[in-house]
Structures are given as structure tokens and as C-alpha cells.
């Protein structure tokens, strides 16, 4: 029986190749999309869940309360917090301080490279599970001069040679360390918090140079905590909340633990500790995946039922020779399943083919998990779900056709399904148009990020880290750089001006309202800062010589807080220094455009300025940079010259938004494609029913042009309807999304117009082709059926 079903299915597929192809493409598209989203979601959900003790691992979050009642959530914590927690609380079995990733010069013999380095406590390897390639992790970091590197680093430093036991030199702008390689780890996977790091060094190695390790004053460490099994984390959170206050009298800090496995997806902590973040996109795309699959199934259903008149006679005959409903249902169901299975194969194939492209787009390293049983479970589930959804309705529908009418050929598909079909088409196009508009908005916002004037000119600026040799001779180095033809100006800064990470909340000046506590960002610089960044000075004067080290510039926002009138010459105290305001600059974005402009102090403080910023001419950039490298190596032959472009670094801050934008664009394309198939199905269905009408109208003298227009119109009305429903939804969604950025592009009516035109154009092509085909047909052929 099954053989009979399958052979008839194949014969029917072969007899209607276009129809079968459309069905296959539609379902494959939907399934491919679902597969990709499944793999992406699975990867997003897998972050830091692979550690042996994942359930016991937490990161400590510091909650800072401001006088106006607002909160900020930070991961930077004091050095003594970790050891204190472990000592004082029985529930805490281990803690590990982890530093921020930094670029360091790494040297082995003549091999000089720039590598990404993090400092960690030795407990790191007891808490986290990463795979070891060679060496040993037992008693690791028991000696301060040990280092652990990744496989990639070993390969670039030592080639194929044995690396364990070799001594490498690691340098930053202040210190050098000779460290012995004791273990090589596999490169950190993409789904862990430490991804990208290439070298791990124990804090013991730098303990002499880092007072912060053993006091409560600086917030310089990320702190990871391991609890004992079955610990009550809520109770513990209550107990540890005020621990910083107990040791420092700082009343604005509270701490709590967030599970490590949630850090990636719930990184954005809102007041009342409501955590959100990428989980929003994970949920959104999951919903899209289900929608896309449902729409693909609905189209499949529509196309099959639209073509049911072809099968009606067969149903009648089969019933008359003894088939009951169940047997017919089985037959049509197995036909549907055959298409579903074939589509699934096609979808898997295209997933494999598109994967590299998808990976480069999402900056992930996904692959189909052929080895995982759960994957086959999901595939089976999708198969059953799709077959049931797509196949059941047509099968029930066909199986229940009245035998006598079917045999007489008097059967027509019931009229009631036409409105439902129309609703489905409107629904699909609404979704497509909403996706189209929002994808366009995301694109516009990303463009806005890239082109927005930040207050300074980020283009044609490179930066790199200063070195131990350059630091004491900044002015000389600077003068050597500016002798190069392509170099216009150079300066030193502490943070990058686009991401200032030093601040104070306790500055003082005459006439300050003591009730207001504000957070002010501090940017250390060398000379020529405004010239190099092209930041405009509004009043006052710039730094002119090293004699100005106790002078500061402020931005307009800061000036507004201090009081605009007679601001020049005002003294300001913070951190025990008294400095004098000598000038006011324009406002600039010292953080991402998600945040508003904040008050900034620019302080001439060369010894704390360890980044070199160089403005170069746009002509022959490569030559200029190689000359800069030449000067750099004349000063420091033991450091790797590792430079970045400032504008690229800024763009990288928005990589999340860029990826989301690209993903939305892809899913939009898919949704439109699938919706077109839906419209195609509806058109096919309608024109099949209109064959006779078309014939009669033509006999009566209607031209093909008139008929095409007349028939297309009723479909285009559906699309117009979809535009009307989609526009406010898209507006609402886009505005909500845009509002999370302090600086954002505005929603414009042309977005809607653009999407509407696109949808209409696509609809006209889809329907027009059908209409033209139907109206060009010889009326004699269509009337002969009667």
C-alpha cells in the first residue's frame, strides 16, 4: 500500500513539476530559516554552560546608587572583595579575580607579537573547564613566574616546537615579565566570557606592581564566585549585599551574584535588578522562526488545496472501489510527508552550503551538530510538526470530498476557504512589511552610528599603546612622529576619547551645591589633544606646554554644571588635586551613542596617558604607518607595533546592532519570498476557478490587458491592506527599538513608502504573471471543460 502511495506521489510530482518545485522551495526556505535560527539560538543559549560546575558559578555585580535614585550596574570590583568573600562565607567555595583583556607585546627569541592577555587568580582552573592541550594544570600558577597560553599563541610563537618550559617575555608600557610556559590550552571557544584571550598570567606575577590587589579602593577586577553545591543564592545575596560598605564606608555600593550562564544573555541589568539583553533577540528570532515555518506550512496547505480539483476524480474513484477516509487520509498524508522529507533534505543541504556565509555574518562558528542525538530529535520533531501542520488539513479535506459529486466532476472547492486564504495572505504580507520596515530602520541606525558627528573627527586617526621606552620621552617621540610627511599631529591620552573609563564622583569647586553628586569622566592627555582629535575649543585656551599639568579643559556640559559665567580660572579639586579650568570645549560623545553626553574633564597628565593617537593624512596611509612603525621600533625594539584605526574601533562597538541588522535583512528576504509563494498559491487557486469566467469575458470582447488589470487588482488590494495594518506596528516597534539609543535616527514616512512600494512591486510581478497567463489562454480551451 505504501509503495502504491509513494509511486503515485512521484508520478504526480513529475506530472506537475512547477507546482512541486514551488512547494519544495517554499518549505525548504522555511525549514532552512528555522534550522539556522535553531542553531543560532542553541549557540546563544550555550554560553558558559559547558563548565563542569556551571550551576555553581556566578559573577559578582556591583550596584551603584546615585543621589537621584538611579542605579548603575558594574562588574568592576575591589581587589580584596574576592578573598574576603571566600574567607567569610561558608557557602562560597572559591573565588577568582579576572582582569580586563589588554594588548601586550610578547617576545620569544626574535619572534615579537602583540597578544591579548588577561590576569587571573590560580583558582581559575578549579572553577572553569577548558580543554588542556599539553602541560599540566595541577598546582598551576604555584610560582608567580608562570604563564598559560592558547594553542594559537603557541603556534605563532613556537611553531610546531614544544612550548612547555620555554620562557617568554611579556611587556606593557610600564613593566616586563619573564614567564615560563606551563600549559597550553585549546583556543577559547566562541561561547565563553573569556573568548579572544590568548594568554593567562597569574596575579602573583604582578603582585608587586599592583597595590589594588590587596586593598578596597580601586574597582579593577571582575570577580567570579563558585558556591558550594545546593547553596541558597538568594539568602547569600542578602548577606553579602553590604560587604563593600562594611569595609569602606562607601554607602552607595551593594553587591549581588548573577549566574555565570546568564551573564551573556542577561547582561543589561535594569533597576530592581531586572536583567535583560540579548535574550530579547533570542526570543524574537525564535518567534520569527516559528512564524516563518508556520507561514511556509500554510502556503503548502493552500497550494495543495488550491490544486485539489486535480485530485478530486481520483478521490471519487478510490472511494467507489473501497477506500475509506482513513486510507485516503493516509495516502495524502504520505504524499505531504514525502515533500516535507525532501524539503528537509534540501534545507539541510542549503544550511551546510550557506553556513560559512552565515558564520561570517554573525561572527560565530556554528556547524550542524551531526554527532548530537538532540539534533536528530529536533529534526524529527520539526518533521512531524511540519507534516502534521502542512499535510493534515489538505488530507482531511481531500479525504472528505463527496464521492458522487467528485465522480460527476461537479465538485468545486468550498467558497468559505477563499476569505481565509485572503486573510492568510494579508497576514503574511503584514509580517513581511513589518520586517522590511524594521530591518530598514536598523540599517539606518547603524549608518547613523557610523556617520554621526561625535564632536571630534574620528577618521584618519590611528592609535597604539605607548611603551616603557616611549613613556618617559613623550615629547621627543611626538616630535619624531610629526617629522613624518603623512603625520599631521600626535598626542597621548589615558582612555580613548570614545570610551573614557575613568571617573570621579567627588569633585569640588567654589559655589558647588553640596547636595548634588555628579559623576564626571576624566580624560588624561598629553599636549596637542584638541589639534589631533579636531575637538573645538569654545572659550579659553588650550594646553601650551608641560607647565599646564595642573590645568584642565572641560566640555560644555561640565561647564554648564559649574556655571558658564566666568568659568575660566575657576579652581576644581578632586582626588586631592587642585586644578584650574583654562578652557571649554564642545561636547563630544565619550561613550557609545546609546548614552547621552556626560560631563568630562580633560586633564593634562602625560604620565597617565599611555595611548598614542596620531592623525594622519588620507593619502598613502600604508607608507605613513610603516614610517610610524619605524620610529616606534627605534624607541622600543622589544615591543610589537599593534595599531588600530579609531573609526573602526568605534564601529566595532556597534557590531551587535550591525549583526542584528544583517540578520533582519536576511529574514526579511525570506519572509518576502515565502509570502510571494503564498500569493502565488492564492493566485493559482483563484485563476483556476476563473478559467470559465476568463473565457466568457474574452469571447465577449475583453482584452488581455483589461483582464490582467482587473484580476490583479483584487490581489493588490490585499497587499495595500497589509500595508495599512503593518505601518503602525512597524512604527511602534521601530520607535521602541530606536528609543533605547540616546542618539538615534528618526522614523520617517519614507520607510513605510519604500516597504509598501517594494511589497506592491513584488506582488504585481507574482500575480501579474498568473493573470497574464490566464488571460492569454485561448478561451476555447477553458470553455471546453464545461
Amino acid at each position, binding site marked *: 500500500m505504501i509503495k502504491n502511495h509513494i509511486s503515485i506521489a512521484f508520478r504526480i510530482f513529475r506530472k506537475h513539476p512547477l507546482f512541486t518545485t514551488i512547494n519544495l522551495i517554499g518549505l525548504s526556505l522555511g525549514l532552512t530559516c528555522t534550522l539556522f535560527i535553531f542553531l543560532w539560538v542553541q549557540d546563544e543559549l550555550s554560553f558558559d554552560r559547558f563548565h563542569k560546575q556551571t550551576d555553581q558559578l556566578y559573577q559578582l555585580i556591583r550596584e551603584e546608587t546615585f543621589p537621584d535614585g538611579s542605579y548603575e550596574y558594574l562588574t568592576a570590583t575591589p581587589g580584596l572583595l574576592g578573598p574576603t568573600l571566600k574567607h567569610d562565607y561558608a557557602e562560597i567555595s572559591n573565588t577568582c579575580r579576572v582582569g580586563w583583556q589588554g594588548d601586550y607585546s610578547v617576545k620569544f627569541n626574535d619572534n615579537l607579537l602583540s597578544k591579548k592577555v588577561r590576569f587571573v587568580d590560580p583558582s581559575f582552573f578549579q572553577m572553569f573547564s577548558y580543554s588542556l592541550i599539553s602541560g599540566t594544570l595541577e598546582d598551576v600558577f604555584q610560582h608567580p613566574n608562570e604563564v598559560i597560553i592558547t594553542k594559537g599563541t603557541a603556534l605563532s610563537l613556537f611553531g610546531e616546537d614544544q612550548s612547555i618550559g620555554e620562557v617568554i617575555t611579556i611587556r606593557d608600557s610600564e613593566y616586563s615579565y619573564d614567564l615560563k610556559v606551563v600549559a597550553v590550552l585549546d583556543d577559547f571557544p566562541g561561547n565563553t566570557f573569556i573568548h579572544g584571550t590568548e594568554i593567562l598570567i597569574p596575579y602573583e606575577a604582578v603582585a608587586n606592581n599592583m597595590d589594588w590587589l590587596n586593598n578596597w579602593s580601586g574597582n579593577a577586577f571582575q570577580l567570579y564566585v563558585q558556591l558550594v553545591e545546593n547553596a541558597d543564592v538568594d539568602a547569600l545575596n542578602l548577606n553579602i549585599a553590604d560587604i563593600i560598605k562594611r569595609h569602606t564606608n562607601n554607602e552607595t555600593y551593594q553587591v549581588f551574584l548573577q549566574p555565570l550562564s546568564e551573564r551573556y544573555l542577561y547582561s543589561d541589568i535594569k533597576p530592581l535588578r531586572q536583567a535583560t539583553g540579548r535574550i530579547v533577540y533570542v526570543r524574537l528570532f525564535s518567534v520569527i522562526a516559528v512564524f516563518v515555518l508556520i507561514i511556509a506550512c500554510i502556503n503548502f496547505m493552500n497550494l495543495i488545496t488550491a490544486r485539489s480539483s486535480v485530485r478530486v476524480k*481520483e478521490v471519487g474513484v478510490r472511494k467507489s472501489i473501497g477506500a475509506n477516509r482513513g486510507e485516503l487520509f493516509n495516502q495524502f498524508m504520505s504524499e505531504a510527508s514525502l515533500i516535507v522529507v525532501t524539503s528537509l533534505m534540501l534545507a539541510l543541504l542549503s544550511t551546510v552550503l550557506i553556513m560559512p556565509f552565515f558564520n561570517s555574518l554573525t561572527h560565530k562558528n556554528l556547524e550542524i551538530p551531526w554527532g548530537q542525538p538532540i539534533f536528530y530529535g529536533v529534526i524529527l520533531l520539526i518533521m512531524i510538526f511540519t507534516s502534521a501542520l502542512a499535510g493534515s488539513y489538505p488530507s482531511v479535506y481531500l479525504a472528505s470530498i463527496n464521492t458522487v459529486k467528485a465522480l460527476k466532476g461537479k465538485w468545486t472547492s468550498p467558497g468559505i476557504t477563499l476569505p481565509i486564504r485572503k486573510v492568510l495572505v494579508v497576514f503574511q504580507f503584514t509580517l513581511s512589511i513589518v520586517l522590511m520596515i524594521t530591518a530598514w530602520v536598523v540599517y539606518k541606525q547603524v549608518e547613523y552610528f557610523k556617520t554621526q558627528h561625535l564632536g571630534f573627527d574620528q577618521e584618519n586617526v590611528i592609535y597604539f599603546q605607548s611603551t616603557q621606552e616611549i613613556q618617559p620621552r613623550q615629547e621627543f617621540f611626538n616630535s619624531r612622529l610629526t617629522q613624518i610627511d603623512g603625520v599631521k599631529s600626535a598626542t597621548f591620552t589615558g582612555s580613548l576619547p570614545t570610551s573614557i573609563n575613568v571617573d570621579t564622583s567627588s569633585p569640588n569647586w567654589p559655589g558647588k551645591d553640596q547636595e548634588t553628586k555628579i559623576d564626571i569622566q576624566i580624560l588624561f592627555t598629553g599636549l596637542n589633544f584638541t589639534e589631533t582629535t579636531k575637538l573645538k575649543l569654545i572659550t579659553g585656551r588650550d594646553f601650551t606646554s608641560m607647565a599646564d599639568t595642573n590645568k584642565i579643559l572641560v566640555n560644555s556640559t561640565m561647564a554648564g554644571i559649574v556655571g558658564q559665567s566666568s568659568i575660566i580660572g575657576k579652581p576644581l579639586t578632586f582626588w586631592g588635586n587642585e586644578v584650574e579650568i583654562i578652557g571649554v570645549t564642545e561636547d563630544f560623545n565619550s561613550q557609545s551613542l546609546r548614552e547621552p553626553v556626560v560631563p568630562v574633564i580633560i586633564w593634562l597628565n602625560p604620565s597617565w596617558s599611555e595611548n598614542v593617537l596620531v592623525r594622519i593624512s588620507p593619502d598613502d596611509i600604508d607608507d605613513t604607518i610603516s614610517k610610524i612603525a619605524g620610529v616606534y621600533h627605534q624607541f622600543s625594539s622589544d615591543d610589537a607595533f599593534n595599531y588600530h584605526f579609531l573609526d573602526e574601533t568605534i564601529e566595532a562597538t556597534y557590531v551587535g546592532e550591525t549583526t542584528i541588522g544583517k540578520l533582519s535583512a536576511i529574514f526579511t528576504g525570506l519572509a518576502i519570498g515565502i509570502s510571494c509563494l503564498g500569493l502565488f498559491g492564492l493566485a493559482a487557486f483563484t485563476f483556476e476557478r476563473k478559467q470559465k469566467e476568463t473565457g466568457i469575458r474574452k469571447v465577449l470582447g475583453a482584452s488581455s490587458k483589461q483582464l490582467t488589470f482587473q484580476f490583479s487588482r483584487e490581489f493588490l488590494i490585499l497587499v495595500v491592506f497589509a500595508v495599512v495594518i503593518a505601518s503602525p506596528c512597524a512604527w511602534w516597534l521601530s520607535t521602541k527599538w530606536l528609543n533605547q539609543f540616546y542618539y538615534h535616527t528618526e522614523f520617517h514616512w519614507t520607510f513605510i513608502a519604500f516597504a509598501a512600494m517594494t511589497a506592491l512591486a513584488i506582488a504585481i510581478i507574482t500575480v501579474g504573471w498568473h493573470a497574464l497567463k490566464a488571460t492569454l489562454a485561448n478561451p476555447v480551451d477553458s470553455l471546453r471543460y464545461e
Partner: protein
Amino acid sequence: MIQLTNLDKYYSTKFTRTFVLKGIDLEIKSGEFVTIMGPSGAGKSTLLNIIGMLDEASAGEYLFMDEPVYKIKERKRSELHKHHIGFVFQAYHLIDELTVYENIETPLLYKGIKGKERKSMVADMLDRFNIVAKKDLFPEQLSGGQQQLVGVARAIVGQPKLLLADEPTGNLHTEQGHIIMDIFKKLNQQGMTIIQVTHSEENAQYGKRIVQLVDGMVKSDDLVAAEAG
């Protein structure tokens, strides 16, 4: 074998009932060869469809092999239909996507007959109707007469007790018609009950009894006079 009592078939609209069959009383015994005749629209095909359980009467009683058709469960009725009734249509109604062999085989599949037995039954039919050479052809590759031979083969392959034929020769040349009618006659002689609907007086002569239907009512019910053979 078949007992119809006061059978009605009507279609209701808002205000009126249109009767297709009205007050039909008919008894057909096992082994009979009955011809139903009458003008177009008299309800012949409807009556045949009701007897063949493709359609349901609106009122009245229908006993098939002493089973009250409308009081037994759908499943049982479907079984009766499957095992005891074969259909032959004017338009042949072969399944276009299946070969001759597969068309004949299909009812056996629905009856759940196993592979070997099924093969020999189909082979028997092909042999009997002399269409072995055509077994792998599709219906569109056959002439009308050949298609109807396949249609008859398919109807009787399951050895039904009752064969229903709705104008079986209506689309055929006279010569082809005779062949089909000769087969019917032979089947009847072997014990199969046959009910046919036809316009043709000549074809009616092959049967033993003629029921005249006019406006949905039995006008006359006579044995075929002066049996030719």
C-alpha cells in the same frame, strides 16, 4: 439481497423539497441481472449510487444482505461496500497516474489482500480480459473499449457479490459495447448479481429484469419477455 422500502431522496432548499426519488420499493434477489431504465433526470444514477452506498437516501429503509444499511456503523458499512460491491462507470474513471496493473490491483490493496494472492488475482484478470500485454500502460494510452475492460476487471477482481454499472457502454462504440455486455452476461451466469443503468433497449435485453423509473418513481418492473438466449 437488496431490499428497498419506501425510499426517498430529496434536496431541501429554504421553502421547497425537490424529490429525486420518491417512495421506491424494490427487492433484488441474489443472482438477478436488473436493468434500470428511464428518461434523463429520472433518478436512475442516484438510485444506483444509493444501492452502491456512495450516496445516502433521505428517508426509507435499505437492507443489504439482511443488514439495515442506515442503522449499522459507518465502519461496517464501508466493509460491506468494500467486500461485496463492484462499480463500473460510463467514463471508466480509471486513476490516470496508475498503470493498468495498478488500477486493477488497487481495490485488493484496500481489501488488505496479501502480496502473492493479490498478484495471482490481478494476473487472472489480465489473462481473462486478454490485456496482459497492456498491463504497464497508463489509461491515456488505451482506447475507450480497453479502458472499460480495465474498469470491469477492476470492479470484479475482488469477487464482489454485486456489480453496479452506470451506463457502462455509454462512451463506447457498438462493437465494444457488445463485448462488455457479453462479459456481464457471463458473469451473471456464474452467479454475480448485476444492476445496470442504461438508455439502450438492446443492452437491457442482456438482463433478466427491467425497472422503469420516471420522475423518481418506479413506473414498471417487468421480467424481460421472450428471453432471446
